[in-house]
């Protein structure tokens, strides 16, 4: 009897654990976004940079210069997405509290001239080593305005994504990934478990 009880308890624990994993996994998977029009408007108005591969198959990645897991996503999944014809559009913003003058100058330049080549150089170098050589200073009025716009975009997107259960009202999950699903609606992913990113690739035909 005691043995049967032990088996039952163990079985229940196993089922519970599997259920917990499944629930976590599902909550973390890609989802259709609420506030779609507002999010789409923000993304379309942002000066993203991309290799220009497609106007239809698009993935937006919101990130900033020294985000290690944004860099990892770019290294690991961008080649697969681009090979499948997906235009990988990157929107870089500046963190208001702790950004450096050089980082602000780099982001301002990306928002000003939208150079994919500059972005590739920009993210390869840690913020502490980025010199922004040859770029207009972050104190130029134009740069100040562009940096402020990048922060404003991140602030608005953070709130909208949090209302979709991705990140919080205070903090944006990075990378933030948004794309248009096969049904034409915007999709997003918390992707806090790296395994879940396979679904992003699947939905964009890049798996």
């Amino acid at each position, binding site marked *: 009897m005691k043995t049967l009880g032990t088996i039952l308890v163990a079985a229940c624990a196993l089922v519970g654990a599997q259920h917990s994993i499944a629930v976590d996994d599902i909550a973390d998977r890609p989802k259709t976004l609420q506030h779609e029009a507002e999010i789409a408007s923000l993304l379309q108005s942002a000066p993203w940079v991309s290799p220009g591969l497609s106007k239809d198959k698009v993935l937006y990645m919101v990130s900033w210069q020294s985000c290690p*897991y944004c860099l990892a996503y770019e290294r690991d999944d961008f080649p697969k997405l681009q090979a499948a014809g997906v235009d990988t559009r990157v929107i870089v913003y500046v963190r208001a509290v*702790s950004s450096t003058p050089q980082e602000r100058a780099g982001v301002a330049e990306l928002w000003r001239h939208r150079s994919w080549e500059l972005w590739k150089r920009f993210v390869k170098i840690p913020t502490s080593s980025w010199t922004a050589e040859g770029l207009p200073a972050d104190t130029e009025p134009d740069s100040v305005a562009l940096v402020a716009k990048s922060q404003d975009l991140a602030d608005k997107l953070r709130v909208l994504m949090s209302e979709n259960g991705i990140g*919080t009202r205070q*903090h944006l999950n*990075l990378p933030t990934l948004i794309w248009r699903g096969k049904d034409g609606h915007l999709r997003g992913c918390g992707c806090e478990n790296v395994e879940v990113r396979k679904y992003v690739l699947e939905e964009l035909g890049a798996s």
Partner: protein
Amino acid sequence: MKERTSILAPVGLCALLMHPPGAYANDAVVQTSQTRAELSAEHSVVAPGGSLWVALSIDLKPKWHTYWRTPGDAGEPIFIKWKLPPGVVAGPIQWPTPERFSFSDIAGFGYTGHLALLTELKIAPTVAAPAEILLEADGAWLVCAEICVPEDGIFRLPIKIDPVHRNNVANAAFTAARDALPRPAPWPVKAAASGNTLMIIAGPGISERALKRVMYFPYDGDLIANGANQEFRLQDGTLKLEVELTPDASGRGEAAGVLRFDHGNSPVPAGYTFTAPISRDAGK
């Protein structure tokens, strides 16, 4: 997700009711999904002309990490911007000995679990006393675990300035925080470059007992290949550590940073700071 505003709304109301006019409210804790961050002081009272150690402590959930002063291939150092009353000046952050983590060929230097960043505040002799002052700091830190979350918070901590009623009772949390700091290397340290290899030679005088791993954490973010293997040999009390240089490091004149020693018989690493000119002709 625990929202800061939702916590602070009732707390703020209570604080307003409980604190008499003229007293400062303590608002020293920021709680997020991944971290609990707190600003604390070693003592609650300090005399004019004295100094006070304060700590920004961060407790991370399992699997999450944050970054050292040199974050590695990417990442961002923990940032503190002080807003202090006249006559109070903050010294530099004292960084605990870091650890290394790697993912997708990206190496980072930083911390998991618990860390405390100590800062010394100097109080000018001219600061009025007895009085209460408010220490304020904007903090920002990046936490990562398969995703990254840039977090921040504003910390406020009231401190009494009093020449008479001092509090010098030992604070265990600060003792532990000091134990986690690297200390100046007690033996000579030399650095020599040959090709793309940097050889750090430390000693003699290093104990061989149970030394399991040695790792160099540079202050210069462009000096070494952050994720590369670091091989050490220890013979007759002299340590030789081989580190791969970056292609950009050929013109660097000195190596500085922290040597971290992990011992098989202790979970607590030992850290040693050093600065050494790089010799180009000594080789291996």
